[in-house]
C-alpha cells in the first residue's frame, strides 16, 4: 500500500469509460444540442456540451438590416418565446433612440410578453415531463399553449414568428374582442394548472426523479451567470422586471407582483401551488421546475392586471418607427427578463439606419454552461432530467 494518506476506493468492477454521444439527434436534447457523455456504466463522469449546430449568423445579419427589419430574426432566437425576444430588441433600440412608448403600448407589451412567458413555460414543463418519461402532460401543455398561440395569431397573424412588438410599440393594436377572449382563456387555464401539479409537481415518481438532482447552489448560479428560473430556482432573489434598467422596469410600474423565489424557505404565498416536498433541495431540478410553474401563475396575474390597465389607458398603442429611421451615434446594451432568463441585446451605431454592430447575449448559453458541473457523477437518466430542467433553446444559444 502506498504511504500516501489517501482513501483509495476501488470500484466493484473495473469498467472502461465509454464515450457516448447524446445528440445532436437524440429525443431528449430538444433540438440539436450535442452532449458527449463520458460514462462509467450508468454513472456519468463528464459531460461535454457541443454547440453550434443551429448557428445562423444572427448577429452578423443584424449589421446589415435596420432595427425594425431585424425584428423577425429575434423571433428565431428563442423561438418558443418570440414575443419576449421582440420586446427585448425593441426596448434596446428605443433606449438608444431615447424613444418612449405610450402608456397603452406599455400595457400591451406586458400582456403580450407575459402571455409569451406562459406559452414558453408550458413547453418547458411539458417537455420536461417527456424527458422524464411521462408523455401525457406534454400534450396537456401543448393544448393550452395552442390556445395562447390562437390569441397571438389573432393579433399578428403568426403562430411562431410573430414580429409583433416592434421598435416604437407594436405593429397593431389588439383586435376588437380579443381582450375578452384572453380573459376567457385565463379563466379556463387556471384550473388546468392544478392538473399539471397533480401529474408532475406532486407526483411521487416525478419528485423522486427531480428532487435532489442537479443541485446548484445560489453562488454557483451567480458565478456561472445563470439567470431566469434557473437562477431563482437556486434561491437568488433576482428578477430584471424588478431589478433591471429603468427603461425595462418602468414597463411593470404599477403592477402588483412578487419575484418567484424561495426566500427564508418560503415561496411567495400569493401564488397558490402545492407544498414543497421534503426531499427537494433548493437549487435542484424540482425547484427549477417549480419556479416555472409559479411564474405561470404570476404571469396570469400580470396579464389580468395588464388588461385592467390597458382598458383604462388612454392614447395610442405606439406606432412603429420608420423602417429606415436613422439611429443616433452611440452604443447601448439592455437586458430583459425573458422566460429563460436575461436576454441582452446590444447595439453600436455609427449614425446610419443600420447598426454598426448588433449583439445578443443569450440566457440559455449561460444556463447551458452549468451542465458539465451539474452532471458530474449523476446517472445517465439524470442527464435529461438536469438538461430538461434548464429548459434550453438551442436557437438562442447558437443564434
Amino acid at each position, binding site marked *: 500500500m502506498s504511504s500516501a494518506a489517501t482513501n483509495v476506493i*476501488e470500484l*466493484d*468492477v*473495473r469498467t472502461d469509460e465509454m464515450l457516448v454521444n447524446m445528440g445532436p439527434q437524440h429525443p431528449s436534447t430538444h433540438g440539436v444540442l450535442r452532449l458527449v457523455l463520458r460514462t462509467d456504466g450508468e454513472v456519468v463522469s463528464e459531460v461535454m456540451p457541443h454547440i453550434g449546430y443551429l448557428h445562423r449568423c444572427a448577429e452578423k445579419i443584424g449589421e446589415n438590416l435596420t432595427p425594425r427589419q431585424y425584428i423577425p430574426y429575434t423571433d428565431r432566437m428563442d423561438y418558443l418565446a418570440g414575443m419576449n425576444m421582440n420586446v427585448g430588441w425593441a426596448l434596446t433600440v428605443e433606449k438608444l433612440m431615447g424613444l418612449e412608448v405610450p402608456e397603452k403600448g406599455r400595457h400591451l407589451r406586458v400582456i403580450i410578453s407575459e402571455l409569451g412567458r406562459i406559452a414558453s413555460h408550458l413547453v418547458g414543463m411539458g417537455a420536461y415531463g417527456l424527458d422524464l418519461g411521462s408523455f401525457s402532460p406534454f400534450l396537456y401543455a401543448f393544448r393550452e399553449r395552442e390556445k395562447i398561440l390562437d390569441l397571438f395569431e389573432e393579433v399578428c397573424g403568426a403562430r411562431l414568428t410573430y414580429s409583433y412588438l416592434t421598435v416604437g410599440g407594436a405593429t397593431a393594436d389588439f383586435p376588437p374582442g380579443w381582450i375578452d377572449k384572453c380573459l376567457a382563456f385565463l379563466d379556463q387555464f387556471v384550473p388546468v394548472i392544478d392538473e399539471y401539479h397533480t401529474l408532475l409537481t406532486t407526483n411521487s415518481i416525478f419528485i423522486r426523479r427531480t428532487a435532489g438532482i442537479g443541485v446548484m447552489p445560489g453562488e454557483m448560479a451567480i458565478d456561472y451567470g445563470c439567470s431566469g428560473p434557473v437562477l431563482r430556482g437556486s434561491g437568488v432573489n433576482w428578477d430584471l422586471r424588478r431589478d433591471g434598467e429603468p427603461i425595462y422596469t418602468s414597463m411593470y410600474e404599477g403592477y402588483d407582483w412578487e419575484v418567484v423565489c424561495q426566500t427564508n424557505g418560503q415561496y411567495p404565498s400569493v401564488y397558490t401551488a402545492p407544498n414543497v416536498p421534503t426531499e427537494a433541495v433548493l437549487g435542484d431540478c424540482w425547484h427549477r421546475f417549480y419556479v416555472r410553474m409559479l411564474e405561470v401563475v404570476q404571469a396570469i396575474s400580470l396579464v389580468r392586471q395588464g388588461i385592467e390597465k390597458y382598458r383604462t389607458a388612454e392614447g395610442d398603442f405606439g406606432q412603429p418607427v420608420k423602417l429606415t429611421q436613422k439611429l443616433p451615434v452611440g452604443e447601448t446594451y439592455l437586458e430583459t427578463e425573458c422566460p429563460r432568463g436575461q436576454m441582452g441585446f446590444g447595439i453600436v451605431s455609427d449614425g446610419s439606419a443600420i447598426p454598426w454592430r448588433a449583439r445578443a447575449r443569450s440566457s440559455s448559453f449561460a444556463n447551458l454552461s452549468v451542465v458539465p458541473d451539474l452532471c458530474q457523477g449523476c446517472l445517465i437518466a439524470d442527464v435529461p432530467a438536469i438538461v430538461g430542467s434548464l429548459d434550453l433553446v438551442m436557437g438562442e444559444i447558437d443564434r
Partner: protein
Amino acid sequence: MPILASLLTEPIGVAHYMVVGAVLFVCGVVCMATKRNALGILMGIELVLNGANVNLVALGSPYLRGESATLMLDGQLMAMFVIVLAAAEAAVALAIALNFYNNFGSIDVDRANQLKG
C-alpha cells in the same frame, strides 16, 4: 452405431440419454481446455455439470427403465442439488472472475500464472 440405426425403431433408453450427456460433458471439457477467457471456462464447467445432470435425470426417469432398478426420485433430487450448487458455483466463480479482471485488467486466464512453480 447400431444404436443410431435402431433409434427409429427402438424406444429411447438410458443409453441414449447417456450419449447426449457424454457429448455435453466432452464439449464442456474441451471448452475448459481450449478457452482462454475465464468466463468461457466457466461455461465449460456449466456444460460438464449439465452432462452429469442428464445422466442423473435419465437414471431417475420412470419412462426409460424398469421401475425396480431406477434411481427414481433420487436422481431428480441429485440433479436439483447439482443445479442449485451450480448456481452457487457460478456466482462465486463470476465474482472471482470479476475480481481477477479488476486486478489484471484482463479476463485471460493465461495471465493468472503468477503462482506457477
